[in-house]
Structures are given as structure tokens and as C-alpha cells.
């Protein structure tokens, strides 16, 4: 159990940020896709810039993980179709449900229990992808 505490704490931190930043709000996602506010772009943009900085720092300083290997991000497979088609399908759902996977879980904590239907549907979607995987262009 002890080795999982740190992940639990990171999760708590993540949940708090996403609520306090309003990124869990359906309204903010709608606003983003309407290009009517800088808010969400600011969040994602500053996260990416900070992320690039931290990863560069880790590489330059040769930082190691708690498991004693170098800090390294696993590479995504090369490809185009799966990213553009899968991404577009994800985008349709993101804009309709107003929540991506992280916020879905976090919204449970805010007491918005109807999000459980969205989560159940997302599980179904993942399951159907698993069934059709071999037949889809990747």
C-alpha cells in the first residue's frame, strides 16, 4: 500500500487543479471550441511550455526516476491515420460530453453523478474499439 500513496497524492493534486482551473466544466470546453476565450488555450499552452522545460531540464541534468532509470517519455508509434481519425472521433465526443477522461473521473468527486453515464459509455466505446481493432486502419 505504501508505494501507492504517492500516486494517490498526485491524483488529489490533479483533481484539485482541474476543478480550480475550471477545465472540468462543460462550458469551458464549448467556449474553447468557439475560440471565445483564451482560458483553455492558456492552460494547455502553459502546461506544454512548462512540460518542455521540465523534460529538457531532466535530460540536461540526467535526472533519474525513483526506480533508478533515466527520465524518458515512451515514444508513440509512428503513423497518421489512427491519430487523425481516432483524434477526430475523440474530439466529437469531447465537445459533446464536454469532458475528456481526466475530468470525467474528477466530476464524480464534485457530485455530478450523471457523469457516470458518460463514463459507462466511454468504457463501452473502449470495449468496441478493442473488438474492431484489427479491422480499423491504423
Amino acid at each position, binding site marked *: 500500500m505504501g508505494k501507492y500513496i504517492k*500516486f*494517490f497524492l498526485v*491524483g488529489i*493534486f490533479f*483533481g484539485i*487543479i*482541474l*476543478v*480550480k482551473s*475550471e*477545465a*472540468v466544466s*462543460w*462550458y469551458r470546453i464549448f*467556449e*474553447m*471550441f468557439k475560440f*471565445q*476565450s483564451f482560458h483553455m488555450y492558456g*492552460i494547455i499552452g*502553459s*502546461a*506544454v511550455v*512548462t512540460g518542455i522545460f*521540465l523534460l529538457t531540464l*531532466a535530460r540536461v541534468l540526467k535526472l533519474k526516476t525513483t526506480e533508478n*532509470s533515466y527520465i*524518458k517519455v515512451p515514444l508513440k*508509434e509512428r503513423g497518421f491515420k489512427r*491519430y*487523425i*481519425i*481516432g*483524434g*477526430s*472521433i*475523440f*474530439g466529437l*465526443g*469531447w465537445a459533446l*460530453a*464536454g469532458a475528456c*477522461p*481526466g475530468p470525467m*473521473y474528477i*466530476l464524480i*468527486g*464534485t*457530485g*455530478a453523478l*450523471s457523469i457516470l*453515464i458518460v463514463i459507462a*459509455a*466511454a*468504457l463501452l*466505446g473502449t*470495449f468496441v*474499439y*478493442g473488438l474492431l481493432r484489427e479491422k*480499423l486502419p491504423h
Partner: protein
Amino acid sequence: MEYILQPWPWYISGPCIALVMFLLLYFGRTFGMSSNLRTLCTIGGAGKRAEFFNFNWRSQKWNLIVVLGAVLGGFIAHNFLSNPINIDLSQNTINDLEALGFNNAGQSLLPPELFSWDAVFSFKGFLILLMGGFLVGFGTRYAGGCTSGHGITGLSSLQLPSLIAIIGFFIGGLIMVHLIYPILF
């Protein structure tokens, strides 16, 4: 304390999210929330129906723990760290939503027009949540990541596949909001 109780500006929230990504890398893991959907399918026995779900889900236990923490974090932030104030949406957004039939935009996290129990138990409302969730679950696994995996982790490590996925996220999102919403609402 007053600063904590107010909504956090993007330039605080964004770097904090990057910190979450970095902490998980530091612990030898990768930040990605949608992987948990696959893990939950596997726990539910989906491996009997599709090879994709045949993996040792215990290797992903840490990520489920992150999710549990996130739920608690959401509870704490919502109940103890927030003054009840409206989301400061742009006036254009509020007007556009009103034209679509969404009133009082920003007075709650989620629109009651979609997420109240009345809405959920109407045929149309239920279908909307069902479709939204399904597309997210299907699309994220097809694309191999979501906003956290591609958007934050992938872009931070300058990976081209993630950039393509993000472009896809926006193609889908823009089609939904600009072309499909006027038909749906």
C-alpha cells in the same frame, strides 16, 4: 486563502498540470488518463472477447490509484476550496449558448440542460451523454491517448503523432460545436 478559494488563472493551472506529468515520469510512469478505461475493461473480463484487453492489469494499478486520488481531489476542491461563484465565461459564449437553449451558462460546472436527472432521463438527453462518452472512449483508444497522454505528455516531448492527434481533436470538436450543435439543440 482568498486566492485559493477563487478560480485559478491559466498561468497557475497549466504549469501545475505539467508538474503532475513530470512527477509521474519521475516515479517511472507516464501521465495518461484514458489508459484507465482499457484497464477497467480488462478487469471487467473484456480479455475473453478481444486480444487487446489481454494484459496484466495489475501493472496499471498505480494509474487507477491516481484516478481515485483525482476523484477525492475533485471532492475537496469543490466542497472546501471554492467560493460559490459563476464561471467567468465570455459574453459571446453566454449569448451563443442562450441561442441554443442553454440558460444561466456558467452558474454551475455542468449545464443542467444536459446533466440534471430530468435531462438524463429524457430520451434525447440520455442519447447525448451516451454518444459523447462512447466517442470519447472509442476515439481515445483508437488515437492512443487523450488530452493528458497526447495533449500534455506527447506535446511536451515534441512527438509528431501527438500533434496529429491534437489536430484531430480539434477537427472533431469544431465539427461538433459549429456544425452538429445547431442541429442537435
